[in-house]
């Protein structure tokens, strides 16, 4: 019975996640936190495509979050584009940056790959920092005003946080559906094969370099979407979006939630941001608290919060399935 239910949830994982996310704002202390978790959940899912599923640890994913944010913001502030076109601009720009960064980085492996992505992301940071005329430099990009969203004549108040949550959820849902489809596709099998054994994947007839580049670009695009949505949400783009600490956050969220699981990174993002929210009320050194919890997980629950729950459910369900 439990296995049945579990299998059904796994098979319809996108629907299950959406059902949860539809009700999610109700259990959060305030909507802005729920929106933040939605956006960073997507960011971590995009990162996990590369890290958890393909086995490539990037330290440069802030570049994609940041470029997505900035290009969406610039399109609105300087270009006067409609908000939805600006979101697409952010995604496209991130994918393009991903193509260039990926092209250079996939020539290396392991720690070298991580270092190259870090270095390239720092170049992007510096570029946006210096392009003050467009990006606002140190002060960040301000004035991304999206007050109403026009949906075929139906005007939605985007300043209302609950409306904002559900508008953003539409994009996040589409992206999650896309990621799930990719993971279930033949290509999804190829990237997992590359993670398990790159040489063997090549010997099986798969062009490893091409597959890595493609998954890198997909990952960048998903993270770019998260960035673009964040620009709409915050109505500013802080320069910190491109900072390497932001790249580190993706790694932490993934590990905390459970890398290589579909929903794990989302859970990781939720736990991380919720802890931050709770801990900042007591101390400005909230990172110390999060750090301790992070260490506990890495040391004692290496599968992460979600990974451990799945493991526990599977183990409970397995003996019954045998009967």
């Amino acid at each position, binding site marked *: 019975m439990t296995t049945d239910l579990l299998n059904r949830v796994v098979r319809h994982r996108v629907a299950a996640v959406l059902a949860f996310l539809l009700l999610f704002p109700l259990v959060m202390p305030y909507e802005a936190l729920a929106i933040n978790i939605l956006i960073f959940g997507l960011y971590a899912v995009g990162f996990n495509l590369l890290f958890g599923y393909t086995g490539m640890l990037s330290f440069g994913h802030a570049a994609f979050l940041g470029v997505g944010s900035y290009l969406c913001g610039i399109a609105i502030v300087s270009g006067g584009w409609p908000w939805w076109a600006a979101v697409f601009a952010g995604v496209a720009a991130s994918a393009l940056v991903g193509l260039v960064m990926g092209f250079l980085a996939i020539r290396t492996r392991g720690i070298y790959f991580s270092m190259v992505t870090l270095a390239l992301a720092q170049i992007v940071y510096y570029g946006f920092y210096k392009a003050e005329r467009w990006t606002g430099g140190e002060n960040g990009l301000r004035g991304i005003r999206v007050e109403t969203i026009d949906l075929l004549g139906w005007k939605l108040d985007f300043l209302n946080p609950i409306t904002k949550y559900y508008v953003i959820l539409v994009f996040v849902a589409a992206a999650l559906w896309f990621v799930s489809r990719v993971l279930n596709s033949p290509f999804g099998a190829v990237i997992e094969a590359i993670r*398990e054994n790159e040489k063997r994947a090549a010997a099986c007839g798969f062009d490893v370099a091409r597959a890595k580049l493609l998954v890198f670009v997909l990952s960048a695009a998903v993270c770019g979407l998260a960035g673009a949505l964040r620009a709409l949400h915050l109505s500013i783009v802080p320069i910190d979006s491109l900072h390497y600490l932001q790249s580190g956050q993706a790694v932490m969220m993934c590990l905390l939630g459970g890398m290589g699981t579909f929903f794990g990174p989302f859970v990781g993002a939720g736990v991380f941001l919720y802890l931050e929210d709770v801990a900042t009320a007591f101390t400005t050194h909230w990172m110390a608290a999060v750090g301790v919890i992070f260490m506990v997980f890495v040391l004692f629950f290496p599968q992460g919060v979600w990974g451990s729950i799945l493991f526990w459910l599977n183990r409970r369900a397995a003996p019954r399935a045998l009967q």
Partner: protein
Amino acid sequence: MSGAILEVENVTQRFGKFVALNRVSVAFQPGKLTAIIGPNGAGKSTFFNVVSGAFAPTQGRIRFQGRDITGLAQHEFARIGIAKSFQITNVFKQLSAHENVRVAAQMRESRFELLRPRAGMKALMAKADTLLERVGLAALRDKTAADLAHGQQRALEIAMALASEPVLLLMDEPTAGMSPEETGVMMQLITELAAERTVVLVEHKMKLVMGLCERLIVLHHGEFLAEGTPEEIRNNADVRRVYLGQE
């Protein structure tokens, strides 16, 4: 040497100053079961890596079915019909036996489709099951590869190589580390496989290849030493000297 399926011409492989292969030329006839033998350090594995595309030779050419394939990328080798089973077991450890074979088989059907659900690829599922049956792993299809016994991993290795529908199957010490019973089963399987396609083995167990193969090629210190039927090789003075000198 016309009609050969694989021709190796004057192949030299250097690693820095070390010469692993020195101007080796051999040809493999289609449909034959051939073994490459030689004492340790003879260059067997290097030879195998060169003809299976793991790296391009320093000098020389390789021709497959008349086509020059020297320097072709590793993934192209599987596509043109050359598959290799590895000496050190080289499977996708965290995937199930069935998934391992399915991924390998998928190469012929789909490599870069992003949105098609692979659960719907029924032919692929069936093909993986047939191959697992063939190597005697049908009962273990859902087991994680890492949890299989050594001999079973070797069998899985061969199912994966077969999944790409090779014209030429290269097997690097297929019985390495196997028990006598497992070795017997594997030899039986090799004989069956060789009836359908060209098979080349690398092996250092002389007794095993003598009874199994139609042609033998002997390498020694990275150089070609002799070629012939098991009988000819057994009576070859050079080969006897090399092996007796060693033992």
